């Protein structure tokens, strides 16, 4: 099974910045496994891509609050569709392998029934492969890869916006303190900095 890449994180980095980085890595892993995935002679490729799709979906859900809502829902829906198609293709592979092992341990009397089941599974495997092929085309048409990277960029940009606003606020307060206690100051930061500090995001809480 393909091992996931370890991603370095620190406890105090902003949640959204970690989200951006982790989603980018998991996106790259998913699409790196796409090559040759329709080859029914090599069933491990489908397995690896399926595992990658699960990991990607998991991190999208963990960090959902960091992404623009509408784009996130649309991307998540497409990742789920792809994961389902990978499952439809993968499950018969697993069952066929199990049936072949099982049949090998059976007496000749028991084998005809298992072969009937294996034939049914092979048909499902073929249908699963067609479904997966159609879904991979759809993924390319809808630029799922690009949209996933755009989600990461949006999460990162929101963090940078917050940091810039926080820096600006801190500078304004420092300037206010340097101007002295007689400066006209009601304790509130300037309105334009308040506006800059309001990120354009939906709270997942």
């Amino acid at each position, binding site marked *: 099974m393909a091992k996931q890449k370890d991603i370095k994180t620190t406890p*105090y980095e*902003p949640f959204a910045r970690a989200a951006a980085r982790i989603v980018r890595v998991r996106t790259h892993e998913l699409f790196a496994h796409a090559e040759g995935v329709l080859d029914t002679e090599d069933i491990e490729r489908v397995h690896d891509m399926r595992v990658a799709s699960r990991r990607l979906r998991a991190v999208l859900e963990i960090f959902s609050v960091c992404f623009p809502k509408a784009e996130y829902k649309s991307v998540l829906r497409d990742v789920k569709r792809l994961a389902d198609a990978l499952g439809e293709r993968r499950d018969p592979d697993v069952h066929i392998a199990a049936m072949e092992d099982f049949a090998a341990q059976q007496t000749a009397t028991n084998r005809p029934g298992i072969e009937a089941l294996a034939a049914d599974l092979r048909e499902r495997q073929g249908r699963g492969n067609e479904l997966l092929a159609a879904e991979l085309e759809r993924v390319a048409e809808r630029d799922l890869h690009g949209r996933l990277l755009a989600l990461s960029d949006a999460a990162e940009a929101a963090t940078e916006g917050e940091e810039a606003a926080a820096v600006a606020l801190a500078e304004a307060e420092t300037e206010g303190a340097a101007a002295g206690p007689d400066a006209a100051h009601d304790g509130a930061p300037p309105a334009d900095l308040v506006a800059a500090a309001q990120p354009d995001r939906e709270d997942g809480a």
Partner: protein
Amino acid sequence: MKARPVKGLDPAGPLADDAERIVLVRLDELCSFMPRAADPEEVVALHDMRIAAKRLRYVLEVTGNLFGPYAVTAGKRTKELQDVLGEIHDCDVLVPRVEAVLDGLREEDVGAVAAGAQEPPHAEEYRGLEVLIVKTRARRKQLYARFLELWTELEREGFRARLEYAIAERPAVAA
């Protein structure tokens, strides 16, 4: 099974604090399936518990290094639980599938015998499929016993309390 929403997440807040909130909710979700899943007939509860274990495992895989050392161990133990529940689920999916194939063969045979066949054409295939069902159910019993054993181990080792403690820790960050 829809995941419970996690309140109070702040995209600008520290990663470990938000991750702690998520782990607490996912851990509670997982534990909420007992004692219902202690009944082997509770197929849906066992399936949902597997999904809950998967969610907890994935969040610990990504964030376990942010917390005290037991968090990484808890991720591995959760994976063990997920794996055994996954194998139980595979049995629960396979048996109805085999029964459906058997039903299909029987229906064909009813038609064939009604049309004049002396013997059901698929008679030789029934036995292998029945043996498969018996063996799958037997395996499911063994797996279920393993699941209960594993859950008891987790309770004895204080899995929940230790993980709750670990996620409140913040190891020193290397310079």
